[in-house]
């Protein structure tokens, strides 16, 4: 057991932070019109620097890839880090240029709106047992207007039999790494929103004293810190273990529970200013709501955790 970052991990994340300082961040996320919604330049830089190969790298691995997903998301990097850094390599599929969509629609149904769907050229569909990797025609996608940070679109019919059916068991691999990855994304964003709120609570004066000196708020932030820390280590452990069904579902269940609570508390403590476009809080909290929907959300993660541990009827 070792809860400290290794020298390799530190060096890796420092290098990633430097890259993200140039190709991500709040400023860049506010002006996507100049580059298009998806940040191809960021993806290209990540690829060139080797961050998309961490999963299978001898000196790194899935945990390092997960830590990178967390950082990219915290910096609002406009790419699809979960399929690129985790799911594609876990399936042994070749790298893909441009956004990749993930979906797990109920049998016979089309997926709901997916992130970067209007630009995605590939979708991975997790079925009951097998996963299908299907090409997408961006021209057929139907953009869905949304306030939640990510460009969403309904993707063109993918259930019509096209695409390669991957071997048995691949759906579980996709679900496991998707849960770990989406949770890592949430961790990165939650940490930013939380830190912003704690700073605000220290600086903002109300009734002649610091907002954060009121115990009614202090205990809520303290409980939130317990949830966030718990989620963080659950996600790292699940990644270290290779995203097995139980650990990844448990991590996602706890992370989405934290996400719900964090959204309410940060916005309540920040007050009306947190509801403005000018303030940065929404850059993270609105995107977080999109993560909340993935793979059925908190209730589905909890049922999956239960099923994995005790063999309850699958969700």
């Amino acid at each position, binding site marked *: *057991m*070792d*809860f*400290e*970052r*290794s020298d390799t*991990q530190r060096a890796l994340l420092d290098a990633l932070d430097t890259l993200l300082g140039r190709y991500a961040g709040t400023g860049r996320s506010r002006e996507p019109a100049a580059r298009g919604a998806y940040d191809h330049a960021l993806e290209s830089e990540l690829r060139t620097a080797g961050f998309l190969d961490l999963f299978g790298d001898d000196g790194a691995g899935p*945990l390092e890839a997960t830590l990178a997903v967390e950082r990219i998301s915290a910096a609002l990097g406009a790419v699809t880090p979960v399929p690129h850094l985790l799911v594609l390599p876990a399936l042994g599929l070749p790298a893909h240029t441009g956004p990749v969509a993930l979906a797990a629609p109920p049998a016979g149904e089309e997926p709901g709106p997916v992130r970067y769907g209007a630009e995605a050229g590939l979708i991975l569909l997790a079925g009951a047992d097998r996963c299908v990797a299907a090409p997408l025609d961006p021209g057929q996608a139907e953009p869905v207007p949304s306030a939640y940070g990510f460009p969403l679109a309904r993707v063109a019919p993918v259930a019509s039999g096209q695409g390669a059916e991957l071997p048995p068991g691949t759906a579980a691999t996709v679900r496991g790494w998707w849960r770990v990855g989406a949770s890592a994304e949430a961790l990165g964003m939650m940490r930013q929103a939380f830190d912003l709120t*704690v700073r605000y*609570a*220290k600086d903002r004066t109300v009734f002649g*004293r*610091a907002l*954060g*000196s*009121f*115990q009614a708020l*202090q*205990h809520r*932030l*303290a*409980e939130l*810190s*317990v*949830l966030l*820390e*718990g*989620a963080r*280590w*659950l996600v*790292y*452990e699940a990644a*270290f*273990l290779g995203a097995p069904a139980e*650990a990844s*579902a*448990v*991590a996602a*269940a*706890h992370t989405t*529970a934290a996400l719900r609570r964090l959204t309410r508390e940060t916005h309540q403590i920040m007050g009306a200013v947190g509801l403005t476009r000018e303030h940065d809080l929404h850059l993270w909290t609105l995107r977080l709501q999109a993560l909340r929907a993935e793979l059925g959300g908190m*209730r589905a*993660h*909890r*049922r*999956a*955790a*239960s*099923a994995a*541990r*005790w*063999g*309850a*009827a699958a*969700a």
Partner: protein
Amino acid sequence: MEFAFDEADAAFRRDLVDFLDRELADGWERSEFGLGSAVHTDFSRKFVRTLAGRGWLTPHWPERYGGGGQGAWQHFVLGEEMWKRGEPRGPQYMNVNWVGPSLIKYGTEEQKRTLLPPIARGEVFWCQGFSEPEAGTDLAALRTRAVRDGDGYLLNGQKIWTSYADGADHCFLLARTGTVADGRRGISVFLLPLDTPGVEVRPIDGFVGDHSFNEVFLKDVWVPRSRLLGEENKGWDIVRRTLAYERVGAPRYARAALVLDGLADWSRTRGLLHDPGVQEQFGEARALCEAARLLVYRVIDERAKDKEPSPRANQARAAMVQAERAVGDLALDVMGSEALAEGSRGDAQFRNSLGAGIAAGSYEVQLNLITRLILKLPKE
């Protein structure tokens, strides 16, 4: 970062599990209720000596004080396996987790020589004399007095909620050597033999398990100066450290997780586990138990690296309380009136969970410390 036990600790766990399977096969009735009950404590007295004989009572202590010189992880593996089985060491876990380590860190050579070996051999029980009728969560308000008297001190006052005092040999006792106005700067630690004249123990009838609380009355109790731990008026530093150990010393999440597994078995045989709402509640509780486990592991990692106790122990403790409560609530929600039957799994967990946020510093005190030491929010 690494989330696996090293081979030595994993091998130790395997040996320990084998040993416990054999040793507890006869005469040990596992029960979430039992800790502190008379029958439980009687079993413990014999069991801890067997454990000591194998060097497994105090494996983490230095060898010169009767320990095995092993690391913090091995000690913790021991705690996990014991709690999973209802803690057959009984009140001994307090001795080995924090009374002994406090003596090792702050005791005089004479105190170590006389007091540590009986603990390492499993011959004595200690209890913790902290809370008073008007000083529980607000511990620094304690009023039990210790006045210098010849070559010792005269103690007068009252302790309350003192677990195991009815069977303990010694008490790790806090008393005020300064004035009340000195607050935490006027407190000292005494290592009081409970058979000292003037000590009276009265049980309090509680309903959290068979374990009884006690009141301890101190009337003109004389204790020699050699039983003062550390310096006079410097007891608070020892307490802070002691509490940091105590907060995560008992891996309560391990018991909660085990009870949850049992509740899942119970629910499955009755077809309840098909209910999506029940599945969700189980998944939520499992996640809380697992989060608590990792937050405690993080504290053990700091300890294994010889770092000073950190406020992360407060986060770990808060997470354990949340886990115990979630499992207790689930038990009553899922088991229905079966949970009301005395001694049922649900009954035991629920009643235990009522005390979870009170012992070892209340849940709210943990939150206060997180606020101040981790978030660094301003005081009122």
